[in-house]
């Protein structure tokens, strides 16, 4: 062990161990979230949700995963093979990278980069690429429309997302996520930046393609959107990425606005996960309450409402800080 450390250097080993940990966490998180989503949805609809598979249906997501693994690997005849194969793999990269910089606790962070948030934002834009690849490669009209919608939507909502985070960065004077958390020692940024939080949250829901902004996979219009032609394990990867993304946007929200891992009595990681899953719950809650917006309304909301609002908020923050 010491030999390995001495050869590769402490930092590298830490990163590798961290990555493995992240992988495990990603899978675990997706399992928990699918179960929680079905359970929450069930109770909101006054039914039980998964129950018969394991105690409280807890084994349900594992059964789903094993089943998806065991499905026939099916490649439709008319797809563009390289794109079709690459897309589900590629959607996973940004997800993993994002985890590297998120501070779960004061000491629990794979790598604290001083440009942490930039890494996340840069890589999360990549997921658009893989969705586009999936849509284009599937050679299916529904998938293509879904992909195009997704691109337009992600680009439109990336801007308010970024603009909502900027005031916080200005206030914390750092791009490092850890520094931002530390800056909220006394007061959470959500208190002085409620508008930014609000904008960020809406944009985040839109970024993760969740109802009421789930147009790329609008079931009643586009069957299943960009992953219409995907089955078995490849579909599972999309599924996994979707749920991980939900967690990531919640985690960033917690880091930026809700004081990250800080909190009394309990250890930091507990606080962090607690806050994150609360936000995840809100996202699930929204999904099971609201209908879907229309495409033009979606873009209008971003370009005509959220972006100007975010700009004004940014200006006001800048002005106040200067004073």
């Amino acid at each position, binding site marked *: 062990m010491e030999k390995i450390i001495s050869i590769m250097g402490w930092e590298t080993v830490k990163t590798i161990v961290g990555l493995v940990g992240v992988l495990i966490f990603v899978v675990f998180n997706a399992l928990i979230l699918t179960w929680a989503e079905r359970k*929450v949805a*069930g*109770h*909101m*609809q*006054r*039914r*039980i949700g998964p*129950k018969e598979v394991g105690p409280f249906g807890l084994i349900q997501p594992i059964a789903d995963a094993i089943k998806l693994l065991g499905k026939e690997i099916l490649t439709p005849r008319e797809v563009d093979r390289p794109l079709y194969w690459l897309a589900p793999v590629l959607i996973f990269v940004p997800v993993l990278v994002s985890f590297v910089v998120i501070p779960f606790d004061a000491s629990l962070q794979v790598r604290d980069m001083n440009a942490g948030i930039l890494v996340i934002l840069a890589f999360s834009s990549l997921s658009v690429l893989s969705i586009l690849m999936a849509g284009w490669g599937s050679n299916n009209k529904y998938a293509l429309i879904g992909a195009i919608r997704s691109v337009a939507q992600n680009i439109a909502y990336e801007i308010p997302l970024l603009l909502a985070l900027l005031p916080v960065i200005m206030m914390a004077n750092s791009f490092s996520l850890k520094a931002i958390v530390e800056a909220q020692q006394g007061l959470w940024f959500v208190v002085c930046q409620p508008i930014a939080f609000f904008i960020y949250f809406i944009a985040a829901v839109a970024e993760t393609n969740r109802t009421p902004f789930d147009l790329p996979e609008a079931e009643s219009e586009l069957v299943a959107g960009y992953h219409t032609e995907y089955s078995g394990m490849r579909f599972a990867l999309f599924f996994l990425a979707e749920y991980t993304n939900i967690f990531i946007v919640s985690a960033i929200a917690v880091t930026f606005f809700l004081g990250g891992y800080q909190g009394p009595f309990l250890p930091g990681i507990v606080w962090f996960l607690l806050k994150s899953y609360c936000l995840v719950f809100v996202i699930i*809650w*929204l999904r*099971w*309450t*609201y209908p879907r917006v229309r495409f033009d309304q979606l873009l209008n909301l971003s370009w005509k409402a959220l972006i100007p609002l975010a700009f004004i908020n940014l200006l006001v923050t800048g002005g106040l800080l200067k004073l």
Partner: protein
Amino acid sequence: MLAGLGVTIRAMFQPVVTSQYPRQLLAISPRFRGHIKLLADADNPDKNGCIACGICVRNCPSGSIKDIEGEKREGEKRKTATSYRLDFTTCSQCGICVETCPSNAIDFSADYNPAGFKREDFHYDLVKEFEKRKKSS
């Protein structure tokens, strides 16, 4: 907007309305129209009440009832069915046979959850089923 969220969160803490089949069974209404069965004769509970007249065969909209045969036993005025075949897979559970039966020998069973691996599982011989029921009771 927010009112909608209130509705769903309240629903979340209300008790569920699920009836957990097969662990809990709903009460099936006595008038439930399942497939049909033969009833016992009013005077003689040992034999079925069907007199093999064939009215139900003629009236059935989809020809689900077939091959009714009967025999006249000694000392009896009317025939008794020895074979009564129902193809439940074409039945529409309308109840015309029950209504038109002159000897009131047909009634709906409360068999509410049939499922099987073959089509032929649901081709019943009601006389045989009647005998089976008689034995088991």
